[in-house]
């Protein structure tokens, strides 16, 4: 029913600044799609074009198979939750929830019934006769959610809905929203969600699929697991994951076997990597997640010497910041592993788990180790 298609969608502002560069994205009916990216990547602009709050200057938006480019927001079968709640300050919670239905001219009894139902789902019944200014952030966000829910829209649009909440509340709202989505879907309601956030934790935990954006372009669209394990390019590799993936610049050399040349050290690449390579770029970037960079034992091949720069104790883990030549890397070690670390003059031997090692083309940024 409410499949959303963005076809060559563009946004150019009056001054000639192009914010969105012809993106293509198809969101299936009932799917929870997260748009994520750093601030200024035009994810909000994209969402607002779907909502009809921002003029579309190129391409088209289809909702449920219908081009909606020129339809006003009220006729697009959408509901939106805003970052700062945007509750109507002069109306009580009840009035806020029922406003959309009131505009549609629905009978009072129907509005009251719908309000009661939504209030029950979101546990805001005791708040119905309060004004927005008498609500806490979490309560206000639940009311904003209710205002969207009551319209039974085809598509829910969320514009960074949790970023004004504190960390604890954010975690519980995350669960609440995903639960709600699952329940509605189970109840047979068409509930496509487009959720904009700059927080990768939200993106990873909530999305069926995630669309990573940067500078008005889509970097990769995939489910969370794929995004984490098989990033398509340098941007996604660096953006997803915490602590960040180590990205080290160097050169690929082709002797008897390909190796990654890092300053005066060389890492011979095993079949685990070479089997996956689609090309061998001259200037390359090696990517390895901190938890896949371990302390090397004597038996390990391809260990490199790293000088400890800084150590963060996280309790059960230790974040070891170390310099390999001019590059800073982070390695996540177990506390016991850290204690057992052999060090000579603050220099340790680290080795990368080549199953999870990525090679990127430095110039195009593309991941060239995704063949398998």
């Amino acid at each position, binding site marked *: 029913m409410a499949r959303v298609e963005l076809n060559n969608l563009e946004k150019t502002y009056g001054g000639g600044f192009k914010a969105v560069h012809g993106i293509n994205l198809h969101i299936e009916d009932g799917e929870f799609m997260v748009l994520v990216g750093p601030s200024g990547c035009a994810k909000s602009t994209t969402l607002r074009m779907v909502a*009809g709050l921002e003029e579309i200057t190129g391409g088209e938006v289809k909702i449920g198979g219908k081009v909606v480019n020129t339809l*006003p*927001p009220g*006729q697009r079968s959408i*509901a*939106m939750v805003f970052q700062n709640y945007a509750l109507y300050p002069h109306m009580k919670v009840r009035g806020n929830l029922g406003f959309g239905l009131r*505009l549609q001219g629905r009978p009072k009894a129907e509005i009251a019934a719908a309000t009661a139902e939504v209030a029950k789902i979101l546990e805001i019944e005791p708040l119905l006769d309060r004004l927005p200014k008498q609500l806490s952030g979490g309560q206000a966000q639940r009311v904003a959610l209710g205002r969207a829910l009551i319209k039974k829209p085809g598509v829910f649009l969320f514009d960074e809905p949790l970023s004004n909440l504190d960390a604890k509340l954010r975690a519980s709202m995350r669960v609440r929203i995903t639960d709600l989505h699952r329940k509605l879907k189970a109840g047979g309601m068409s509930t496509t969600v487009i959720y904009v956030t700059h927080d990768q934790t939200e993106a990873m935990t909530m999305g069926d699929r995630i669309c990573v954006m940067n500078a008005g372009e889509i970097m990769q669209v995939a489910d969370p697991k794929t995004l984490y394990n098989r990033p398509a390019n340098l941007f996604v590799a660096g953006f997803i994951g915490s602590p960040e993936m180590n990205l080290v610049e160097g050169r690929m050399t082709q002797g008897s076997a390909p190796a990654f040349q890092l300053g005066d050290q060389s890492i011979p690449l095993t079949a685990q990597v070479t089997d996956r390579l689609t090309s061998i770029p001259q200037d390359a970037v090696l990517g390895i997640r901190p938890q896949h960079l371990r302390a090397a034992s004597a038996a390990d091949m391809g260990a490199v010497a790293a000088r400890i720069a800084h150590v963060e104790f996280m309790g059960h883990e230790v974040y070891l910041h170390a310099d390999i030549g001019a590059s800073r890397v982070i390695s996540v070690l177990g506390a016991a592993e850290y204690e057992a670390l052999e060090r000579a003059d603050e220099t340790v031997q680290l080795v990368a788990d080549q199953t999870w090692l990525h090679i990127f083309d430095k110039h195009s940024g593309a991941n060239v180790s995704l063949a398998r």
Partner: protein
Amino acid sequence: MAYDTSLALQDAAALHLRRRARNARIGAGLRYLLLSVVGLIMLYPLIWLVGASFKTNSEIFANPGFLPSKPTLDGYINGWQTSTPYTFGRFFWNSFLIILPKVIGTAISCTLVAYAFARFDFPFKKLLFGTVIATLLLPNVVTRIPQYLLFRDLGWLDSFLPLWVPSAMAGDAFFVFMLVQFLRAIPRDMEEAARVDGANSLQVLIFIVVPMLGPALISVCLFQFMWTMNDFLGPLIYISSVDKYPVSLALKLSIDTTESFEWNRILAMSVLTILPALIVFFAAQKYFIEGISAGGVKG
């Protein structure tokens, strides 16, 4: 020994605190005294006016104090009758007939214009807004004669139309400017939420923007009320028959037509004339201040 020292220290501290509290009290007393004196000086003409309106005509210039020696209501009773066939009540009614449509027209037209300027993009918007602001800088007298000729040709002389119509067409640029500034400080999210909820531009204005503009609109109405109540030149130019005179003209009337001025009547009617403005102002003071301190609105 150590015990004694700490006691002595405590005493010294207590003494210091007491002294500071006393100094603060004296300071506050002095401040209020000064403020009261200055306030009294500023209010004195008004107090004198009220006092003098209860004096006899001969006492007004004989006794400089503001308390009448023999209070009398003569000024009010005779002043209310006026020297015309009408009572002062008629003039109040005329003032009301001018003010009410003018205030309503101003509120509606200025809100519409300000909403358009603050929220929509249309061709020549900057130029048009510049023009509106430019009329703010234009001295009123410059437009008096062309305006008079225009209204004469329309056949509107000696009617209230020349007083109503310019305001109902958002002719008061100051109010448009004030509302635009106020609107700019209000985040657009609520309006966007309303549009997503299915409201069209006019519904957004009526259901969302106007309630949020409340304090500013009250200030606009209050300003317009007071300015119209006090407006002398407008009615003087356009209204010629006495039965349509508002109070501002009627007051002057009692000076013109009597041979020896009955000052106590004039003063008594002046007191009545300022009463409505005072009452309305004090009743709406809270909103009025909220409205003109528009920069302070936060989401």
